């Protein structure tokens, strides 16, 4: 199984971390992983993004222009990447923020009211974990329980007290995806 995903949003929304946590999780499960932050032409147009590939096999190119999944945290990300989802792929988007939703019919679209739910958790910063929860539930590319361990590796020790809150957000995110 291979998952070629792109996490995209404004700088500061934690999109780079989302990809990194996924990459760590993949590594913990002995999969091949590659994480590539915004580079080259992808950097323009108001989005920060991270391509993250998790695979059971050797990963050839870290540079890809078509994706299995797009996780969009802002409108420019949907506008830019909707057309680049492979047929049969998916978009997960923050429906609180994104007012013009994706319209393709050959892909699966999950609208997750991420910002709204994050505000309910009294911390908008956990939006990224919430969206990651939806992504992991939808793709099953890594086990949900691996995420806790990955979080600990990504977060510096002094922030480990925030792990429970982040996992709560992650779990809320998973609940928006029903297979």
């Amino acid at each position, binding site marked *: 199984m291979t998952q070629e995903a792109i996490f995209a949003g404004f700088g500061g929304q934690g999109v780079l971390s989302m990809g990194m946590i996924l990459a760590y999780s993949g590594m913990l499960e002995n999969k091949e992983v590659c994480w*590539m*932050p915004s580079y*080259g032409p992808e950097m323009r147009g108001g989005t920060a993004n991270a391509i993250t590939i998790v695979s059971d096999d050797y990963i050839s190119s870290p*540079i890809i222009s078509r994706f299995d999944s797009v996780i969009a945290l802002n409108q420019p990300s949907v506008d830019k990447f909707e057309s680049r989802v492979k047929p049969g792929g998916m978009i997960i988007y923050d429906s609180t923020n994104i007012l013009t939703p994706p319209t393709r019919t050959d892909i699966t679209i999950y609208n997750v009211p991420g910002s709204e739910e994050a505000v309910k958790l009294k911390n908008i910063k956990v939006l990224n974990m919430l969206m990651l929860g939806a992504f992991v539930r939808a793709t099953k590319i890594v086990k949900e329980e691996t995420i806790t361990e990955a979080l600990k590796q990504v977060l510096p020790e002094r922030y480990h007290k925030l792990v429970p809150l982040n996992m709560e957000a992650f779990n809320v995110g998973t609940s928006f995806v029903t297979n």
Partner: protein
Amino acid sequence: MGDLKLMKGNEALSEAMIRAGCDAYFGYPITPQSEVLEYLAREASARTGMVVLQAESEVAAINMIYGAAGAGRRVMTTSSSPGISLMQEGLSYIASAELPCLLANVVRGGPGLGTIQPSQADYFQSVKGGGHGDYKLIVLAPSSVQEMVDFVKLGFELGEKYRNPVMILTDGAIGQMMEKVVLFEQMPRKTEFPDWATTGKKPGKDRNYITSLHIQSEKMEEINLRLQAKYKEIEKNEIRYQTVNLEDAEYVFTGFGLVARICIKAMEMARAKGYKVGVIRPITVFPFPTQVYADVAPQLKGILDVEMNAGQMVEDVRLSVNGATKVEFYGRMGGMIPSPEEILENFERIYIKGETK
């Protein structure tokens, strides 16, 4: 078995430097490789006592390297294109004085101040000498974070074996991307130094001096002949490359570094469409793996060379096949990275539809 970690290319390179028992790093900040100096400043000194110094310029840094390498130490510097240009003077002296040292060029798009995005436009500068005079660097082109680690160790070894400067030719994308790496165990720093090193005159022995100045032409020609003989030896012993699916290949995609992996993806897509494509990736770009191209050329309908520049390595590929097959080029410049789809498209345009442009 060493440690398994998820690391950025630049960090992995820095960690490998510490673990390889590097004695000193002298460098100057420049995007996209400033993490190296930052990582080392944070980590190195406390762990191994390694010297880490931010120089006032790349010019100074490479000359500090000259000094410490002359004293027989394992030394390394890193920079990106504009900074590497400034180091060319020092590199020429280092090559002439036959001092081992390792440097990494995390290439960005040029010419001039250019862009901070990844590029391969420094190929000619890296493999054809770079500074003044007839000399060569040994040039290793990693295509993964793991190779950023492995080539630090290999680079030090090759440099010391041949008393020659070695360059890791990489780019900003490999420097910034994260992959799994297996790190080798910490190696001890050297406690014994070569006979030629200037560590203070030894009792009963002649002094050592390190120089690249030989005013008499006969002597300077002799030095040149010795250097050329060394480069021949390096060409004989140290060629490294990777091939994929060459057995039944009718076409070959070729590129170095990051682009080679994009070529492999494009090859997979081409195979899915029924085109018999293989890939050749030079790992050492000097010495260049001429023979592998020459050997496969007769079975091919053509080669597509892909680079992040205006077409540099393609000249070496053409020299290698020496007319035995067609060699076409596709490249992006100024920090643009070709996508697998683009490579496939251009392959079909050139070789299947037979369009020239």
